[in-house]
Structures are given as structure tokens and as C-alpha cells.
């Protein structure tokens, strides 16, 4: 998938069909943005511009929506998205220590991507397995009962997969 200008960026046939189907229906914007993020992992500026052109909603309004909801990302996330739980249970069991360790060994901070594009760190509130606190997710894999000492090994494992 190329990411250039609004003229250059390519949407998949499924996405194009989805937008065509919904372009004139009220309340379509957020649904379409979900699909765009599903396809690119984030909402590239060129994609937002293409959506604006296709459904006739001003780009300023689209950015008002994208920046309002935390779910939508305007920057390309890492290949592996690390979600560290800072919900009540995890926080009490040392979630912040896990976060600190990650930030140290990856050399980046929450909300950002490593220079090599491999990892991005996000803070989340509860992923539904408080019994395993503190937990984090990388992609779809859950890591529970963490200690800061276990973190480097997990990261090394993902580095080897890349």
C-alpha cells in the first residue's frame, strides 16, 4: 500500500466499495475512518484527504474527529504495538515499572515509535485479565505476572522474529 498524496494513495477494493456504499449516509465518517485505520494501521494524511474528497467532508472536520478520539492514530505505529496496562489492578501491581523498563530498553516513550519502526508503546486501561496483573500485550499475545526483569527477554524474542 503506497502512502503519498491523496491522488497517489491506494485503497483496497473492499475499502473503496465500503466508502462508496456509505458515502451519502449520515454518521458515516467514524465507520469509514475505522476501516481506513484497519487497512493502514493508522490514518495517513493522504488517506484522510482521499476520504475527504470521496465523501465531501472537509479535511478540517475529519481531523477534528481523528484527534478527538484516542483510538485513531495519525502516525504510523510500530510493527509490534506494545500495550501496557495501567488500569487499577495492574498499576497497583507495578504496571508503571513495566512501562519504565520498556521506555528504557526501547529508548522511546509512551505514544511513540522506536527509530527502527519495530515497536510502539501505548498505555491502556484494563485488558480484562486482572488476575494476571501486571500485564501487557504485544500484538495479540498477552504477557502476565510481569516483572521488569522479564521484559528484556520478551523484547529480544520479538526482535528475533522481525
Amino acid at each position, binding site marked *: 500500500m503506497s502512502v503519498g498524496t491523496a491522488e497517489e494513495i491506494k485503497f483496497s477494493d473492499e475499502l473503496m466499495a465500503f466508502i462508496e456504499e456509505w458515502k451519502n449516509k449520515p454518521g458515516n465518517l467514524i465507520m469509514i475512518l475505522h476501516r481506513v485505520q484497519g487497512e493502514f494501521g493508522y490514518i495517513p494524511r493522504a488517506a484522510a484527504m482521499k476520504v475527504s474528497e470521496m465523501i465531501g467532508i472537509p479535511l478540517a472536520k475529519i481531523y*477534528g474527529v481523528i484527534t*478527538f478520539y484516542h483510538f485513531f492514530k495519525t502516525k504510523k505505529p510500530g510493527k509490534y504495538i506494545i500495550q501496557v496496562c495501567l488500569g487499577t489492578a495492574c498499576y497497583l501491581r507495578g504496571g508503571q515499572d513495566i512501562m519504565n523498563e520498556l521506555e528504557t530498553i526501547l529508548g522511546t516513550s509512551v505514544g511513540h515509535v522506536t527509530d527502527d519502526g519495530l515497536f510502539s508503546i501505548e498505555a491502556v486501561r484494563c485488558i480484562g485479565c486482572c488476575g494476571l496483573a501486571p500485564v501487557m500485550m504485544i500484538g495479540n499475545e498477552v504477557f502476565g505476572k510481569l516483572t521488569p526483569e522479564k521484559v528484556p527477554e520478551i523484547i529480544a524474542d520479538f526482535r528475533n522474529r522481525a
Partner: protein
Amino acid sequence: METVKIKIDGIPVEVAAGTTILNAAKLAGVKIPTLCAHPDLEPWGACGICVVKTENQMGVSPRLVRACTTKVIEGFNYITHDPELQSIRKTVVNLILSNHPQECLTCGRNQQCELQRLAEEFCIREVAFPSNVRRVPKDNSTPSIVLDATKCVQCGRCAQVCQQLQGVWALEFIHRGENTRIAPVADSTLNESPCIKCGQCAAHCPVGAIYENDETDKFLAAVKDPELHVAVQMAPAVRVALGEAFGMLPGEIVTGKIYAALRRLGADAIFDTNFSADLTIMEEGSEFVKRLTTGGVLPQLTSCCPAWTNYMEEYYPDMIPNFSTAKSPMMMQGAITKTYYAEQKGIDPAKIFSVAIMPCTAKKHEIERDDNMHASGYPDVDLVLTTRELARLIKMAGIDFANLADEKADSPIGAYTGAATIFGVTGGVMEAAVRSAYFLVTGEELKDVNIVATRGMDGVKSGVVDIKGTKVRVAIAHGLANVKAVLDEVRALREAGQPQKYDFIEVMACRGGCIAGGGQPYGTDDDLRAKRTAGLYKDDEKCTLRCSHHNPEIKEIYEKYLGAPLSEKSHHLLHTTYEKVKTYKAL
């Protein structure tokens, strides 16, 4: 009309159903303080300063409501002022002030700021909460306006004007909660956004968060330079608004005083953009007659308004063939100042510093649009100052403006007719064009030059002008959101291969026309628009000559220099070209 009977602080009033408490209070002679509300805009209850109380009545328990967004209910009494309300409002003002830099002394809105006025009205001597100012870098990316979001009070007026009145969508809030801030589209710069530089955001901002790019220092440097011959022109709308800055009434015609003040400020030659408004009519009117009689592209669209030109190039580039090639009066005046005038007076055009006093911020951008703005071989206009900037220069120079004796403009490009002066108001360009088009088509003079159908504040006006059997269908639109509707219709008819409804369309970007431009004195609303408009029509009536083709200096410039309208020389100096511009630049 259905009405409801209510009471404001016990004062009985009868108002139309659906009236807001705020407007009902005005009718009862009660002033409720506001910050985000503006009569041009839909209320949206952002600031909370207009909060009022309802009593325990008609089965509804007492409550606090925002007067701007709440409609009156039959039989209700609304309490607008008591110690509790004053305390609540004072808290709101304090909260806003805690997020606002206390830099009033160096702010462009010092003494003209709506927040400052509230702080004064509520006797705030010390801000009740610790300062929590979020610093955002200033956006200086355009030559027209500066966005200083650090001073923003998040009233939302600028975004509403930009989106609803102008349909431009350059500005919108981004992020949420305490991180909410105003920003050009997608957090870019104004220059990269679709901003058309009209400055209506600056005219509506209650504080100093968006303002004209102040260039008064450039004027001061030019008049100080003995090498330079400073030639100044002034737009029609300036003469009925500048007086407001000196305690005079809106609409008071101060043309002669402005000429005098400009001479005292050190200008060497005083001209009037009205001269070139007459010249515009000769060129644009002739262009229209040519299109009409030779099957050219119609409807012709007027091209005097630079914000409108920017809008067209971004949003309706398919209308370029319809666009008059005539430059704006300001650019025509600049071009002939450095050619015709320079030749007549034997002045080296390289030594002429050409200044334009304009009601408009887009004019600051227009002078560097493209190479056509250097038709004389030099920048045809070197500097544009808004009405507000001229007021500052006059105050700085200690000139007692209100008591100045009237003076006259200089020849040979300073005289004007009534047709030119109404260029500053919606419908005025069309009225002026019709007065001369009648002559250009028939060779006869129009008996009654007052074309009333072109006047008034309706967003879109239309009519048919009978030029001895030739029916010319005209339309006038102002406020770009209104213009959009007209253009969409033109586009739809063209794409369907159907005949057009209009032959000639006048467009002005700002509601009411230039008299309510983005560079005019603050406080513009429909009441002020009506007064300034009345001033220009009065100026028209005062003129002995009321048709552009009667202006003796216009006849002279064609005889001595240009030859005829649409001549080769005219085309070189007075006409221009347009091109498609990306709505979202460099994004």
C-alpha cells in the same frame, strides 16, 4: 407571528416564539454579558458567561441556563442579574483569565478586547486561579493574518465564521478536553490550509488570538526615506469606517479627512482606489458587453475581491473561464501609479512606494499573487495597510483626526464618481457596472441610475436589467457560503448542458461587502453594516457624476495613455490570469 409573553427581571416583554433569552433581554433593555456569542453566528454556549436563572414556576424547578442558547418559555420570569449570578460569571471570567496570558499592554487588542472589558466589568483585580497558559507557536505563515493560539479563549467564533459564513474550513478545533486547541486544518499552517485570507476570523475574534499582520513600521520607514515618493490610495469602504476609531459615528464619510491625515503622515501623493473602481467598470463592463454580444462564456463573475479569487481558485477552478480578467481596482491603481502617473510627472517608478489603505486582509496577500502584480516592472503595490492599521498610524502621529479640515486627492488618478464609491458594498459593483453597461451597449444614458434591486443584505439577490430590449440577468452574492449555492447552480446547469440562469454575477467574500471586511474597525454586526452602507450610498448621491464613464480623469487616461478599454496596454496593465490552486497545499 406567534409570540410569547415573558418577564426579564420582572419587566414584561412580548417576543416572537423561539427567541433566545439573550435576545429577549435586549428587547427589554437588559444587557446580559457575553463572550462567545456574536450576532452574525449561531449561538453554541461555549463560554457560559451569559448564564441566567429561572424561578420556581409552572412546575419547573429553578435552574441556571445559558441565555444565548435557551429559548424563552411563555409565562416565565428570567433573572439576569443578582449577586449569585454575578459570582458565577466572575468565576467563569477568572477561569478564562487563568488560561490567558496577561500581556494586555503589548497586545494588538489592548483596549479593544472583549475579555479585557469583561475583566473590567467584573472588577477583577487579581486572577483567582493560578496561571495555566499553554504556549503554542504563533502562525505567521501568511502575509495577511497572524494566528496566536496562545491567546485563544476557545469561543469558537473564528471556526464558525470560517466554516458557516465563509464555507472555507481552514480552521477547526483539534484534540479534546484540556488539550483542545484551534488550528489550521490537520494542525498545519494557515498558508497550507484552504485559508482565503479574508480575515473574518480576525474581525470576529473577541481577543488578540487572530489579527491582521501589522505592517505600520514599513509605512513609517517609507515616509522617512527622502528618496522615496510615497503614493497612497484608499479603498471605498475605508472612508465610512475609519471615523469610528476616533469617536465618530459609523457611516460618517471622512474621505477629505483621510486625505489630509495621509498628507500629514508624510505621503507625497494621495490617490483614491475609487478612481480605479471607475477604471474597473470601463474594463470589466466592456469585457461583459463583449462576452454578451459575441457569445462569450457567461455568466461573467466579478474579480475585484481577492478573498473570493482565492476561494474560486481553490474550490471552483472550473469557473476560471467565467472569471473577469480585470484586476481588482487596487492592483489597477498600483499599475497606473508606477506607469501613467510616473510618466506624467516624470518620476522614476523605481522610487515610487505604492501604498494601499484597505478594509481587507486578503489585499496583503493579493499584491504578491503572481507576476501580473508587477505589471509596471516593479511591485505595483508595495504595501497594504488595513483600516485598523491606518487608525493606529494616525493616533501614533498625534493627529486630531476628527477636527482635520477636508482636503482633496491628487490628479491625475484621484477623481471618482458615485459608481466607484459603492464598490465597497454588496451589489455596488453590479450597480456601477449596469450604469455604464447601459451606455456601452446603447450609447445612451440611463435615466435613473439607482438600481435598487442590487441593494440590501439578502445573501443572494437577483434581477433582470432591461438594456433597451436586451434582458441582462444579474445575481449578487456575498458571504461565501451564499456564493457556493449560486456557483453550484451554475456548475450543475453547465454540466447538464442547460442554459444558464444569469449573465453576470457579482461576488464579495464578506457579508455586506468590503464595508464589513476583515480589516475594518472592530465590532462589525448587521447594525454597523447598515450604517456604513448608508454612508457609501450617501457618498454616491453627493457625487455630481455617478457613472464611471463620466469621470473626466478616466476619459483622460484613455485618451492620453490606454487608448480604449480592453486595448493591448489595458490588457498588460489592468488584466490578469488565474489558475487552479490546491485546496490543501503541501499537506
